[in-house]
């Protein structure tokens, strides 16, 4: 089936399958005051999802349950609660192997429990979308926001995007399927956000019309066969590669892995078109730049405002996609900067490490401030970091109460 052939027709809920470019860019938007979890529901209402599989874990449980309501209303083909994140991600894989458009959500320890599945998704070229509402994975147990799980996801072969706001979330869920399902991409997407900060806060989000939805997924545009016995079967290979210890086997595995990463590279042009670039910049001719992703960007914006009051000009680079990594864009955006401040919500500073490995003169990168374990990041600590870098004296933050 050619998905364009259904454009203009209605689904069983009366929504019109709409050209995604018209739906996302031209259709009227309605400002709505919703929590991040409700925004996920509203995006999924318009995403023509065949199968959603849910499992409770804070802070994604509300979104996962709200999508159950969509199933009860008839917007989703099938929905059930799996028994663990490992099982859920395998169930998602089974559904995607069978040609369904699949959606799921997870967080923190759930991401880690499911981890074996993610490289398998990428290797099997399954364009599943998984919302990751990041939270701590450490022991002692924490349910609070922390982005450390993203650093693991970045090595799986999946596309990894990091939303700053609920508006990003809304748009990127829908655009994410368009990028993921491109035949030359056909990879899973981990769409990450900072748990609680985005999921449990209310924000005004401009929604597309309720009566418009994405065209359905066409599994026959996949670069690998859909497992539905609708196309002629034949044995898939002469020898299984798994047990062969020879050069051909190694070369096959190597080229397959390289192809997964090449597919992620090929997603660039589609992502740039949909997201209007892999990064977003403001005042990059300033001496000092804040470069980060997620809600650390929002805190950076506040810090920039505070510093502007004191006459210190700071620019901003918001990184939207972590895979593919915006290497050239970052080199270009940071070329004038003398100090590159990287605020992060995790203990290891994976973002700063990535940036250091990307740009020339990496000593310009200041890997902080960093908070973790659920701490908030007051803009003042970003201000403090910048002033320290510039050699500007400032009052101590300690003892503020």
């Amino acid at each position, binding site marked *: 089936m050619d998905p364009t052939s259904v454009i203009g027709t209605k689904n069983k809920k009366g929504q019109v399958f709409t050209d995604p470019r018209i739906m996302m860019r031209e259709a009227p938007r309605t400002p709505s005051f919703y929590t991040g979890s409700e925004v996920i529901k509203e995006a999924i209402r318009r995403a023509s999802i065949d199968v959603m599989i849910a499992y409770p874990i804070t802070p994604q449980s509300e979104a996962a349950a709200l999508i159950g309501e969509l199933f009860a209303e008839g917007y989703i083909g099938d929905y059930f609660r799996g028994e663990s994140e490992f099982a859920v991600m395998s169930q998602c894989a089974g559904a995607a192997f069978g*040609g369904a458009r699949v959606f799921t959500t997870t967080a923190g320890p759930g991401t880690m429990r499911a981890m074996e599945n993610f490289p398998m998704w990428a290797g099997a070229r399954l364009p599943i979308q998984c919302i990751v509402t990041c939270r701590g994975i450490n022991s002692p147990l924490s349910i609070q926001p922390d982005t450390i799980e993203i650093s693991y996801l970045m090595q799986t072969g999946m596309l990894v995007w990091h939303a700053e706001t609920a508006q990003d979330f809304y748009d990127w869920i829908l655009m994410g399927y368009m990028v993921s399902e491109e035949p030359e991409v056909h990879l899973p997407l981990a769409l990450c956000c900072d748990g609680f900060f985005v999921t449990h806060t209310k924000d005004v989000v401009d929604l597309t019309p309720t009566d418009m939805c994405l065209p359905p997924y066409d599994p026959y545009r996949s670069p690998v066969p859909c*497992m539905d016995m609708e196309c002629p079967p034949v044995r898939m290979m002469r020898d299984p590669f798994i047990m062969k210890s020879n050069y051909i086997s190694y070369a096959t595995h190597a080229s397959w892995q390289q192809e997964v990463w090449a597919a992620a590279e090929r997603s660039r042009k589609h992502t740039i078109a949909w997201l209007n670039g892999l990064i977003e910049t403001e005042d990059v001719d300033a001496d000092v730049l804040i470069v980060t992703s997620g809600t650390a960007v929002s805190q950076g914006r506040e810090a920039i405002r505070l510093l502007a009051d004191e006459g210190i000009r700071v620019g901003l680079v918001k990184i939207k996609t972590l895979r593919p990594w915006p290497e050239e864009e970052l080199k270009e955006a940071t070329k004038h900067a003398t100090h590159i401040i990287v605020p992060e919500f995790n203990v290891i500073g994976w973002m700063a490490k990535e940036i250091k490995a990307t740009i020339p003169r990496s000593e310009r990168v200041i890997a902080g401030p960093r908070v973790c374990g659920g701490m908030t990041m007051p803009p003042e600590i970003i201000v403090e970091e910048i002033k320290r870098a510039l050699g500007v004296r400032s009052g101590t933050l300690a003892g503020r109460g």
Partner: protein
Amino acid sequence: MSKERIKISPDLYDIMPSDYQDLVSSATYGKEDRGWKDIGTSKELIEQHSLCAGCPESMAFRYILASLPNPEDTVMVGSTGCTSLVFPMVAVHNIHSLFGNQNAIASGLKRALSVRFPDRVKDVVVLAGDGATVDIGLDMTLQAWFRQEKFTTICFDNELYANTGGQESGLMQKGFVAKMAPVGKLFDKVRLPEIARESGCHYVVNCTVSKPSLVEKVVRNAVLIAREIGPTYLQLYTPCILEIGKNSMEGLQEMRDSEKPTERFAFKEYISEPAKQLLAERDAKAKEKKAAAKQLVS
């Protein structure tokens, strides 16, 4: 799909691999009464395998593939192990993803196929070893049964981890000395057929694959009941002759010895009440058809 769907363009016929030509000309897709007797006269859905010489698992594979009632619309799910050496050479769509997640994959797959093809029969059959089914994947095996997922689970029970070199498994007999059971296994063979019954399976069989006609019967029953009612489970003894110290030609005898009435693979079958009714209706229809054909001849 049916055989009609795999016709080769005449212009391309001569460049197609011979096994594909054979699949088109003499496989049994769409044949209503296909079964183990087709072996030797029709193209099998398994092209070849790289299992050990005389491996009972290879026999089981051939009997099962010959017996699937609807291979043209069947998708199989495997797991890691010796079965994953065979599946790439099977002419039925099949999925290998991870070790132990086969019943989770099958759950998602069956639901996707039901959403995409609401008016057609699409059977899903899981085929995995005992390590995958009972040890690492037990949670997902049971949960699929609790949820009444409509697919068949077949376990090739060789009572150990064969592919990794003969380590202890949950289905191993108590006392057996193996790798990772250096003083002999300390606990009993897991009673999965009984657990399957209690977990909601509508058809459970425990047997060996010494008799192809029996394999055909239980596979057909299991797939039909899973399609119409709910989960079904077959536990088939496929001894790993290598790891139990037997020769290539001794696999069949090992199975015959193990299926004696007092042995652990004596034929056991559980059929739920709705499944009994379904099988009775099927048998009545077959009888009716046979009688009508007989009348036509006379």
